[in-house]
């Protein structure tokens, strides 16, 4: 440790004012503070401070993402060999998955951190930890076959437009990772939706009856009976609910396994990093909307079969759970008051299922729901805070 500290101390003058690389001080600072919590002590106010800092918080979020990431890597390989009808070992599947997923992660971090570093160097700001999480989220919400240059463009767009122009970490209005995804979704829809993007079928012919569709598109076409069709398509699992709960279905890399996501949710809630209010109310909101559709669907809209998909099944399909657990809970873009978080979470769940079911142009609604509620979060908070203000004014009048 001492050796590292000495090296850092030795090169430090180069980066300080008047040094050769004074402009690159933020980069040096980022490296140094990564390796060592600085020797800054308290100067005013409380003399002792909690051990938590933003680095620890972000690290815990990444830790929570690991189960979904690992399963995503495996599932990428699994879906590939399943579609081709080839026998493959576990190792083969993981290797194939790594070959597909690792480049996405590298590009996302490389481009995102690059933009962030450049901005901080120009502005002379300290480099914030925010992108460490965004950089992991971006690959996990992409289809595995999305071209790398698109990821690069989307990441650069998201970091620049969603974050830096608003002032950097902590100032953004929209979730950065979702901005990257929504950018691609509208700019290159053929690479972000449809039947061709979820499973890599290169180097072979697909088995009979293979469509490459996600459960969501199956559900659009077949409604409540989609489970039977799906069971045929994903022959390995007899029960499509279990298949999607465990994650053996096509989809964006990190979103398929509800189980892995729930493990991550456990980590986030156990360490207190994510708000249980948002997660709980998000799930309740989704369930409520699903249930409403189940009840009114067959009566009023017999044509829309999607309405008849059981509400509990809605919760494990698509990106719903991933969005609720990892993206709706982003504290910067979520509602900030405790009461506001309840509403914010509930409405995200509600809207996600509503968009998914009612608008056939968007097979998945969670992305739109979260982005919409990102924009509405300050309004929710406004009304929550206004209630508190009115209470105080009322007290004044009665006093």
């Amino acid at each position, binding site marked *: 440790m001492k050796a590292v500290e000495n090296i850092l101390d030795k090169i430090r003058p180069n980066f300080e004012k008047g040094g050769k690389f004074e402009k690159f001080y933020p980069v040096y600072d980022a490296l140094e503070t990564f390796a*060592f*919590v600085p020797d800054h002590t308290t100067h005013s106010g409380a*003399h*002792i401070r909690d051990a938590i800092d933003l680095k*620890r*918080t972000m690290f815990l979020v990444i830790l929570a993402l690991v189960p979904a990431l690992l399963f995503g890597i495996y599932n990428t390989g699994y879906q590939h060999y399943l579609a081709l009808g080839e026998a493959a070992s576990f190792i083969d599947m993981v290797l194939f998955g790594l070959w597909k997923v690792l480049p996405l992660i590298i590009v996302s971090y490389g481009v995102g951190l690059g933009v962030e570093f450049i901005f901080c160097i120009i502005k002379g700001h300290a480099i914030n930890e925010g992108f460490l999480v965004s950089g992991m989220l971006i690959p996990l919400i992409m289809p595995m076959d999305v071209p790398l240059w698109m990821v690069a463009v989307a990441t650069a767009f998201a970091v620049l437009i969603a974050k830096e122009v608003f002032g950097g970490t902590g100032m953004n209005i929209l979730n950065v990772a979702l901005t990257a995804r929504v950018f691609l979704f509208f700019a290159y829809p053929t690479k972000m939706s449809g039947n061709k993007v979820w499973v890599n079928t290169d180097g072979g012919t697909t088995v009979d009856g293979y469509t490459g569709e996600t459960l969501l598109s199956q559900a659009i076409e077949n409604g409540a009976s989609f489970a039977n069709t799906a069971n045929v398509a994903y022959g390995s699992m007899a029960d499509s609910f279990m298949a999607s709960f465990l994650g053996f279905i096509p989809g964006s890399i990190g979103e398929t396994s509800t189980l892995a996501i729930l493990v991550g949710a456990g980590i986030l809630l156990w360490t*207190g990093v994510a708000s249980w209010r948002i997660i709980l109310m998000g799930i309740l909101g989704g369930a409520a909307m699903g249930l409403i559709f189940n009840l009114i669907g067959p009566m009023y809209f017999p044509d829309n079969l999607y309405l008849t998909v059981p509400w509990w099944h809605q919760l494990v399909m698509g990106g719903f759970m991933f969005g609720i657990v990892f993206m709706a809970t982003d504290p910067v873009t979520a509602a*900030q008051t405790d009461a506001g978080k309840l509403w914010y979470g509930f409405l995200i769940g509600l809207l996600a299922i509503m968009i998914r079911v009612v608008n056939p142009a968007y097979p998945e609604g969670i992305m739109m729901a979260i982005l919409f509620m990102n924009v509405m979060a300050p309004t929710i908070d406004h009304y929550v805070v206004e209630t508190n203000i009115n209470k105080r004014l009322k007290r004044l009048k009665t006093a």
Partner: protein
Amino acid sequence: MAKVIKIKKGVDIKLVGPAEKKVSQAQRSSIHALMPDDFTGIVPKMLVKEGAEVMAGTPIFCDKSHPEILFTSPVSGEMVEIKRGPKRVIEEIKILADKETKYESFPAWNGGSRESLIASLLQSGLWVFIQQRPYGIIANPKDQPKNIFVSGFDTAPLAADIPFILQGDKAAFQSGIDALAKLTAGKVYLGIPSGDTFYNDIKNVEKVAFSGPHPSGNVGVQIHHIQPINKGEVVWTVNAIDVALIGKSLKAGQFIAERIVALAGSKVSTPQYYRTLIGASITSIAGTDAAQPNVRAISGNVLTGTQSNPESYLGFYNSTLSIIPEGNHKKFFLTEGWLAPGFSRFSISHAYPSWLLGNKRYDLDTNLNGEKRAFVVTGELERVFPFDIYPMQLLKSIMVNDIDAMEKLGIYEVLPEDFALCEVVCTSKIEIQSVVKKGLEDMRKEFSH
């Protein structure tokens, strides 16, 4: 039994080195000092010159805008030095103490009129112990406070145990309470810990019991839960220990500036209580403990106290002297830093596994444990802030200097000390108490003309 108000939000930070319940006589401090900085919002105007002989109770300086508020000497002796800082601001007024304290006398008060009481308090310098809310400044003698609040216990980490200090001074505490009751047409409220028996025989007050973690002992929290302050209202507060001091001095007709101080913290060799006088030197109480390398002496508790050093003096209102290690070394991220397992790192967030160890005492240093960031994490301040106020929204309104929003969001009800725990737990390491202090100053400027 009075009703118990349960405070749920907050946290008791258990630190190594609480003071043992034993009182010894501290060394007699040769120099005593008054530090104008201890008194929020005053501008000192000197009344005596360097070299003058003073007695205990002799006015040393007054507040420029309220010349009737006098600050009197805690000891008799020679005024040896007025230490000035940048821009000639008076930092310390040092008095070389006599061996035996001689007292200036003022008309003792034994239950006369409100006017005679106020006159006695002002003349003796005891008035300074009475503070007002909003703003946390010395009370204005012309005001009629709605109520007066006293907190009978302190829940801050390592803080002096108030009932223990008051043990021998119960009669003085009662006469202090009687005097306060004379000052307000409203009530004198005494916040007591739930299950307490010490204050059983104290009369002439409205007792309200509180349970729960720090800051349940903060008078601001107690006011908020008893009768929150509205715009335009003024309430007064006095520290319980100072109530006894007022009671004793009023009876005697002399400013008896005795203090029992808890010396505590992981860097104190024998943490215990010491008997001394207001303004005593840190060394006279802490001996060599404060002079160790890489330690920080704090006049007051570790959340709200003032950074001191062996050459400085006990703060005017403080009954706690804490000594903890400085955190002025780098912490390698894998062993001590943000990626370490961290069983000995304190956090309320469960981000470190130390919370699994339960009731253990922590040896915390003064490291910031991170760098300053923009507000990112939400909901953490609310966990340690037992007010019906939105802390983050209030802080942001102060940061953008929006007077109107500050008022609406409840700034009249808080002081920096009420935000101390928020500052401790803030992930983004924002200097929250300084922000609140600035907000209160801005408000005061806005309305003082």
